[in-house]
Every structure is written in structure tokens, then in C-alpha cells.
């Protein structure tokens, strides 16, 4: 039975949460039918066409897939800045990387920072080796 009717009732984009400041996490959508996750949350699952999507917070630590340091100014982002693709428990997200001392490497572990007043309201920083990971960060 089609669940597309449920998708009609999805909350509007402007009201749909993408991050949880209190939890310090990005909030993805998880398909009730097949478990596929996407960030930001969508109304219909791209993998199975399911229309029932629930919120799922993503891990706050991820693995760096790739990055680039940009030297050309755009939309009020002052160069140089670092953009990256990061894997947060199987979900790929684009973000800035800040507080770098040296160049990052593919495979580095990075920690999410959420600051809802800023634009963009989230970025990643290197994870300290000695930092303890809360148990609820398992991906």
C-alpha cells in the first residue's frame, strides 16, 4: 500500500529540522520502510519511494572522505576556507572544516560543531586523539 499519502503531510521545508542545537547533532531523515538515511530529511525516500520518514540524529563524529582548500572568494565566505565531504554513520554531508593546524587527510576523524546563529550553522573540527566519545555516537 502506497505511503505517498503520508508524504503529503510532511512538514514544510522551512519548518523541517536539520540540526538539533541541544544535542549538537545534524538530524537526518530515515525511511521507515527500508532504513535509508539522507541529510537533510526529505519527504519521500529516494531508495524505495516510501513516504514515511522519521527523524534520526547523526553521529557527531565522522570520517573525512575528501576536502579542498578554496582560494577564491564567494558569497561572503572569505578565502582561504576548507570544504569537505564527510561520512557521518553512512550519510554523506558537505561542510566546512575549521581549526586546522595542518592539512587534513582522507580518513581523518572530525567532530561536528553546531551554532544555529551562524551561517552555515554547522562545521567540523579535528577530533582530538584523547577526546572521549559519548556512547550515543555509535553510527
Amino acid at each position: 500500500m502506497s505511503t505517498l499519502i503520508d508524504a503529503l503531510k510532511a512538514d514544510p521545508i522551512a519548518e523541517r529540522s536539520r540540526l538539533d542545537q541541544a544535542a549538537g547533532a545534524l538530524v537526518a531523515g530515515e525511511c521507515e520502510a527500508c532504513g535509508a538515511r539522507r541529510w537533510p530529511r526529505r519527504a519521500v525516500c529516494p531508495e524505495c519511494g516510501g513516504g514515511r520518514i522519521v527523524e534520526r540524529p547523526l553521529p557527531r563524529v565522522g570520517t573525512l572522505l575528501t576536502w579542498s582548500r578554496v582560494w577564491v572568494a564567494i558569497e561572503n565566505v572569505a578565502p582561504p576556507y576548507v570544504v569537505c565531504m564527510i561520512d557521518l554513520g553512512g550519510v554523506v554531508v558537505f561542510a566546512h572544516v575549521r581549526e586546522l593546524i595542518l592539512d587534513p587527510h582522507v580518513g581523518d576523524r572530525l567532530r561536528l560543531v553546531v551554532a544555529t546563529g551562524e551561517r552555515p550553522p554547522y562545521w567540523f573540527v579535528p577530533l582530538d586523539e584523547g577526546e572521549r566519545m559519548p556512547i550515543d555516537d555509535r553510527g
Partner: protein
Amino acid sequence: MIDDVEVAGVGMHPFGRFPERHIKDLVRTAALRAVIDAGIETRDIDAVYSANALAGLLTGQEQVRGQTVMSEIGIEGIPITNVENACASGSTALREAILAVRAGVSDVVLVVGFEKMFVDERTITLQALQSAADLDIVSGLGLQFTAVYGMRLRKRLDEGTLKADDLIAAAIKSHNHGAKNPYAQHREPVTAEEVVGSRPIADPLTLLMCSSICDGASAVVVARRGHLDHGDRRRVLVRASQMRTARSRSGNEASVATECARAAYEQAGLGPEDLNVLEVHDAMAPGELLYYEQLGLCDYGDAGKLLHSGATTFGGTHVVNPSGGLSSRGHPVGATGLAQVAELAWQLRAEAGARQVESAHLAMAQNSGGFIEGDSAVCNVHILQGVSA
């Protein structure tokens, strides 16, 4: 299988900087050249597909762009459809024209692609280019195309499946080819020192590895096979026309270009080994290396080897971007997809002069556009075949 559609005529306005020319001027040159090349008059055209991505943001002409440029060459009354798919607008318009002929609705269709990107403030153009990604998601990140390609290449460099030398060699090859192309924006060879020493844009890309802001126009006349007479001239047949949209990343899916090329090979009943010449979407010159793999010219990890073997430059078995590609020919967004087809038509008709690929009879054009979820949003692949009259 497609067996009833041909590319009957092609034409281009040179790519470069033309501040004194209006988009109507650019289109007039390209469109009339294509119409004359097809041996027809404007009254013989049944429909028009007009490709343009940025004129809305850059000139204010957000709507009915196709109708405005066609009015300059007296084309009225017939269906004119405006097409936008970011950098893949040109090939998307071509796909529509092919479908119209295959559907039996039109016999002769004019396809035009044009862009005027040089405006008073360069930052306006750079900002406009950002709209090729989902602004709802990436706005504020400064995720420029250069950075997107930079990230793709970084992953490969880190992995060891590409070397810095390969990136430099791709830029050198592109400029060597562009130097032979009177329509190209950049027509001077470059050295490795110049490539490495040029301004850093988005690591590992430097200025001389990237395509430039550019003005230009190109046009193609598509016709039902046999409808128009071209005398002794070799025919250019359409053997495949495929389009795909990217899938959002959840694992190691094949890229949109890989999926699209597979479908095109299947439609044409061919494999990559059968191709002689390709025009691929090197918005950054080293992007060509990724497409060698995605289009099946070599296995993953062998792109550098293929480039250094000479197989993809003149004299090789699979000449890639004889025109200089996007990075040397220039990349006026709406015009690029049709400029690829113009080049391949000249190649297949043995009319490419100093750029002629020997015995070119099977060609592929791969044109990608936009950015979504880590991949190009759209890809179109066309396969063309040259046959004697």
C-alpha cells in the same frame, strides 16, 4: 536503437570575450552557420530548442530567451522551447530535438546554445554559477565547482590512483589541443611550470587547470535521415542519446556519467573500444582523467597511464577533446554541449583541419551539468557515427 536521425548541420560563434556582442549576435552567427551548413533556409525549420543557463541572472532576460534570440533571425510561429540543465543545457536541448524527430512530430529541428558570462563584475557571474547546486542545502558553504572537482581529485591523489603529474599533463594536453582550434578561448600551449605556478583556485587545482568564464554560442540542425540532401558529404548519424540524473550518495554507486554512458553503449550496440574520438566534460582539465574511467576507456586507477600513453591525444586510438575541451575551448554554459557536437560532426565529416582525428567514424559527446549530492546533477551522452553518403 536510433536509426532515423542525423546531425544535418553545425555552426559556432568563437568562444572568448565579446563585450560588444549581445546574445542575439552570438546566436545569429552560430545558428545561421548551422542552417547554411545544413543547406536549408530558416523557413524549413519545424521547431527550435534553445539552451541557456544564466541569461536570466546575468541580463535579466529570465523568460522567453529562445524566442528573443530567434526573432533576430526571423524565426517565428513554430514551437520554440527553452531548455535549462545547467552546463548540460546544450545536450539536453539536443536530446529533445532528437526525440521530436523520432516521435515523428518534426523533420528539421534547430538547436541553439548560448551564454554571455562576462559582465561588469566577475563576482556576479561566480555567484550565478552557484545556482547549479541545491541552494536550499549548500547555500553559505561556498561550494564552487572548482572546489567540487578539487575534492574529487584530492580523494584520488590521497588514494594514489592519480598523481599530481597526471593533473598537470591533462592541462598541458588540453591547451595543446585548444591551440589548434580557431573557435577556442585559449589558444596557447602551456608548460608544466606555468600550470603549477598559476594562481591556486581550489586545491589541488590551479588557474590553468580550470575552464574560464566565457561568451559563445553553438548550434546544431537535427533532421530525419534522408529528409535533407547533402550531396557527397559524409552523413553524421545519431546512434545513441541518453540522459541520467545523479543518485544521492549512500555508498559507492557508479557515477551519473558511468550510468549514462552504459545506457548509450547499449542503445548503440557498441563498446568504448569502438570509439575513435570523444568530447568529454572537463570543466577542470584533470576532470578528463576521471571521465576516461567513467566512460569505460580504462579501468579505475589507470587514467594516468592512459593519458601518458598518448592514446587520448592526436595519433592515439581514443582522442579525447580534440577541440581543447571545456578547459581550453572555454565553457559558456549553455553553449558547451552543442559545441562538443559541432566538433564531433566536423571530425566525422573529415573537416576538422589541423585537429583531424584519422579515420574518425564513431564519436561520443559527454556533457554534464549542475551539482547534487557529490555528483553532477545531470549527464547526457550522445554517440554519433560518420557514414558515407
